[in-house]
């Protein structure tokens, strides 16, 4: 079968023909090999392929260095899943313009059909990050795969949330699978490669160009049954994903935020247009029929709620909310000296009830609620 994969890869690498045109060509010729062997005349008579594109196919198909691509794939321990393979994701197959080739790190499982995408801004608030982490963790605990784009911000939190409870997560890249973008997510990238899946439709070495990301977004929503938008500004890429989801007949969910924060304008406008407002993971599960029977609440969360607090801890915990507040203010409001409050906060943190964030700010941990 090795030569067949080569044909798929070559077809995928020809510049100027995207997923749509590939599908048209495949419909007409039946196999990638036939497309690559067709002459100019045959090519330009396919509906949707003009003379210009046909010429481009003919001129570039022999120039591509497919040997090099294959050796890079082997070196990086990447596997290739083509549109005709049995393990090609079922959800993705049903969209209008599925990628013909997926470069895969890790293993795609049939269970990944039960998947929810979670996307949002690259510059989230603490609230946004916490919501993404909490929701994705709760969904992953119910054996739902979390799909996101490995971008900064909400995407990162969504992946981390799923990994934190040993759940599955799928990262879809907007660049070649041998490139980690953004670079600071290297460790996360490797972790997902081991415990989940990283996928990309782009040939090895493709730079993270701006135009790649909208294309990637259609795969994110395509792999999933629904898309959750956590924080999105007015012109956020997350809204493009929401748009793709609608086109593909997926559910769209949005988490509300602070109305004074411009970074939530986009998600709020989605809610106005009819996206379902999400406060907890039940809101998502309820909407998607095939998810209803998946696991109830895990025991780990329950035990967290039953941890005993001392009266002092109880008092300090009650002062905190989901808005971060500074340690000085907590000290003032509780009437406890700063050294005393430090140790109470530390104990609360160790008991998993609160969290500390940068700037000596504290807030309640969402999972203990």
């Amino acid at each position, binding site marked *: 079968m090795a030569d067949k994969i080569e044909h798929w890869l070559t077809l995928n690498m020809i510049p100027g023909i995207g997923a749509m045109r590939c599908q048209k060509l495949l419909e007409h010729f039946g196999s990638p090999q036939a497309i690559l062997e067709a002459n100019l005349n045959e090519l330009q008579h396919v509906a949707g392929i003009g003379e210009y594109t046909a010429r481009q196919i003919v001129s570039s198909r022999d120039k591509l260095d497919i040997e090099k691509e294959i050796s890079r794939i082997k070196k990086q321990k990447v596997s290739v899943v083509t549109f005709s393979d049995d393990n090609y994701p079922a959800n993705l197959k049903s969209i209008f313009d599925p990628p013909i080739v997926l470069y895969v790190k890790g293993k795609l499982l049939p269970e990944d059909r039960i998947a929810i995408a979670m996307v949002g801004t690259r510059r989230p608030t603490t609230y946004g990050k916490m919501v993404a982490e909490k929701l994705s963790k709760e969904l992953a605990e119910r054996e739902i795969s979390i799909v996101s784009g490995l971008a*900064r911000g909400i995407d990162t939190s969504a992946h981390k949330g799923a990994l934190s409870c040993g759940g599955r997560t799928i990262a879809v890249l907007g660049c070649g699978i041998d490139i980690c973008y953004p670079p600071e997510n290297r460790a996360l990238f490797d972790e997902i490669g081991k415990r989940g899946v990283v996928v990309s439709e782009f040939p090895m070495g493709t730079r993270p160009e701006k135009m790649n990301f909208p294309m990637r977004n259609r795969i994110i929503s395509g792999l999933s049954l629904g898309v959750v938008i956590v924080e999105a500004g007015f012109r956020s890429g997350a809204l493009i994903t929401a748009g793709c989801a609608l086109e593909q007949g997926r559910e769209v969910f949005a988490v509300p935020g602070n109305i004074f924060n411009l970074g939530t304008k986009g998600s709020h406008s989605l809610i106005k247009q009819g996206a379902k407002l999400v406060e907890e993971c039940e809101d998502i599960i309820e909407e998607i029929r095939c998810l209803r029977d998946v696991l109830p609440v895990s025991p780990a969360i329950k035990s967290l709620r039953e941890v005993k607090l001392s009266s002092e801890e109880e008092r300090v915990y009650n002062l905190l909310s989901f808005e971060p507040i500074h340690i000085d203010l907590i000290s003032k409001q509780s009437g406890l000296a700063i050294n005393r409050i430090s140790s109470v906060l530390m104990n609360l943190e160790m008991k998993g009830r609160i969290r500390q964030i940068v700037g000596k700010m504290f807030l309640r941990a969402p999972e203990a609620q």
Partner: protein
Amino acid sequence: MVTIVRVSTALTYPAKFMLAAAMNPCPCGFYGDSQRECTCTPFQIQKYRAKISGPLLDRIDMHIEVPPVKYQELTVDTDGESSLTIRTRVQRARDIQKERFKKFKSVYCNAHMEAKYIRKYCILEKEAEKLLKDAIERLGLSARAYDRILKVSRTIADLEAKEEISSHHIAEAIQYRSLDRNLWM
């Protein structure tokens, strides 16, 4: 002490000092600020922070994050402790330490303790021991940070004139290690 060896001689200089240093949270200075938005990328912040290596950071006992002070707070006088009362408390703690180390040459205070003295003088209550163990595991603190926490908690206990270190001393000491904790990412 620092020993410098050159071709002709080897010189030993005394090097006992107290270091107090300040840094910004990120290149633009607003990361974690509640009023203004930081314009740095996570990568920039990571690079900026990496200028201080882990081993160096480990050797700094206390990290304290100081938020910007609002104008209003600058002008309102609050009833904080006076320096005089603090001074007497500190003096008492110093006396305890001087007494503790009087047998040893060149050890005058908790900060000078070597590993063997730490084992001897930093005796933890059962509960404190458990807290420290949990914290190291959960917060991913280094072995070097462990020694630092013990020394600082020894001093905190001395300020209360307590012989044994209890869990709230340990808890306070751990709060002073915020830079170890990846809260910044």
